[in-house]
């Protein structure tokens, strides 16, 4: 299987994506941002359409749109009720224009489906390189803000007392979230982003009670899904995203069941 270049690319890109999704996902859960990451993936879809319209690589369009919109969202009201409404508004704006760009681009429908549902198999060497660099950038940023980000994500009030610059942390996190969403969309597609970004971390919190434990578990769950999904996709020729989604859901429902049994 790995003698095919396209499978090697898929495994390398998928591994990086699973690692950063596993880490970022834990912060997404801690910060209650599942909703926002979902929106960012829709925004990513329009970015990719815009990229196609401009004849750019779709990932570049995605990065542009998700980073700009996450910074915009970060500037807006931090009141959570108002915030959800404004996030919805911004994402409708982007999603609507995404449909327009896609129709103006006049390309066939397969471009749209590969953005929405992922297309593991078509990843080129240069795309793999870009995914690698972006993932490394995300990891380096996380390394530098790790403690403050962890404090702010799991105890905002305490972090403010300590004097953490929570506004700065929030913007930095939105940017790395945008990067992660764009990168992860390359494999599972923008419709299924939360399969890698939130399901593994949500499962993790039923098994472990520390931030580092949750990260290890959710990286493991994401890796399992990606590796096994790619293999099954290779064997059956069915979509890889389908298998990844099924595996992550199985882990998630398994975690819920485990939680039931434990508390029974």
């Amino acid at each position, binding site marked *: 299987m790995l003698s095919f270049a396209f499978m090697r690319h898929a495994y390398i890109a998928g591994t990086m994506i699973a690692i950063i999704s596993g880490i970022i996902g834990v912060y997404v*859960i*801690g910060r209650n941002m599942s909703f926002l990451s979902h929106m960012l993936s829709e925004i990513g879809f329009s970015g990719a359409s815009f990229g196609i319209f401009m004849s750019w690589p779709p990932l570049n369009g995605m990065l542009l749109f998700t980073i700009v919109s996450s910074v915009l969202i970060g500037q807006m009201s931090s009141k959570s009720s108002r915030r959800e409404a404004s996030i919805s508004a911004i994402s409708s704006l982007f999603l609507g224009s995404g449909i327009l760009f896609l129709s103006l681009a006049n390309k066939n429908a397969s471009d749209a489906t590969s953005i929405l549902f992922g297309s593991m198999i078509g990843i080129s060497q240069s795309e793999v390189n870009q995914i690698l660099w972006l993932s490394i950038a995300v990891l380096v940023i996380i*390394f*530098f803000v*790790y*403690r403050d980000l*962890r*404090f702010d994500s*799991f*105890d*905002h*009030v*305490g*972090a*403010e*007392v*300590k*004097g953490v610059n929570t506004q700065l942390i929030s913007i930095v996190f939105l940017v790395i979230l945008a990067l992660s969403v764009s990168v992860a969309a390359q494999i599972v597609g923008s419709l299924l982003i939360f399969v890698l970004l939130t399901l593994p971390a949500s499962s993790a*919190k039923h098994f472990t*009670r*520390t*931030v*580092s434990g*949750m990260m290890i578990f959710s990286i493991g769950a994401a890796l399992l899904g990606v590796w096994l999904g790619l293999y099954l996709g290779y064997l059956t020729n069915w979509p890889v995203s389908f298998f990844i989604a099924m595996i992550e859901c199985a882990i998630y429902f398994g975690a819920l069941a485990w939680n039931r049994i434990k508390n029974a």
Partner: protein
Amino acid sequence: MSEPVLNIKNLTVSFPDHLVLNDLSIAVNKGDFLSVVGQNGVGKTTLVRVVLHQLAPQHGKIEYHPVFKRMKIGYVPQFRNIDEEYPLSIRDFVGLNLHDSHMPWLSKKERQKLDKIIAQTNLETIQNTPLGEASGGEKQKAYLAQALINDPDLLILDESTASLDNVRKFELLDLVKEFNEQQGVTVLFITHDIELAQKYAHDYLLMRHGTYQSGPIAQFKESDLEEAEHA
């Protein structure tokens, strides 16, 4: 016992619509246990925010004792958003406030600090319990442990006993008293509970809208508070 650790001088704070603190002065010495009382909205939490540099006063200033280059303050806030679903264990929560290193993992020194504070606050047996599932008293102890983990010079408690029953609130304050007496931690205890203030505090600061009264707790008269409440 010469210079105060915290010297609050002529502090005035107003928000756009109204004046909250008006020319408040009080000196707090090392090892003091000062109870701050007063009705809702007189500015107790506002005072704390100025002490914590979260808010700049319009007038007046706070002098910190020069011995403390940067005075370490532990603070247990009045409100905290920890719900039932909160995932972290008590131990991990307490450790969030460690910052002796920048690494993602805890250093040996940090693990020792964590062990020590968990033991001192009697949280050993429940340290792996999820904080979201802990009782009100256990949560307050965890908040206290997090505030004390870096050996602060000053500890501020903002109505930490408000939701606790008669047994738990004494338990919590017995702990605070231990830190006050054995480690010399200066304590600022904001409360509505006069009985507690009289049992534990050395001094009091009674805040009313615009006027302030302070002295040794033994001289505190409950009639003063009632007067304030009916003012």
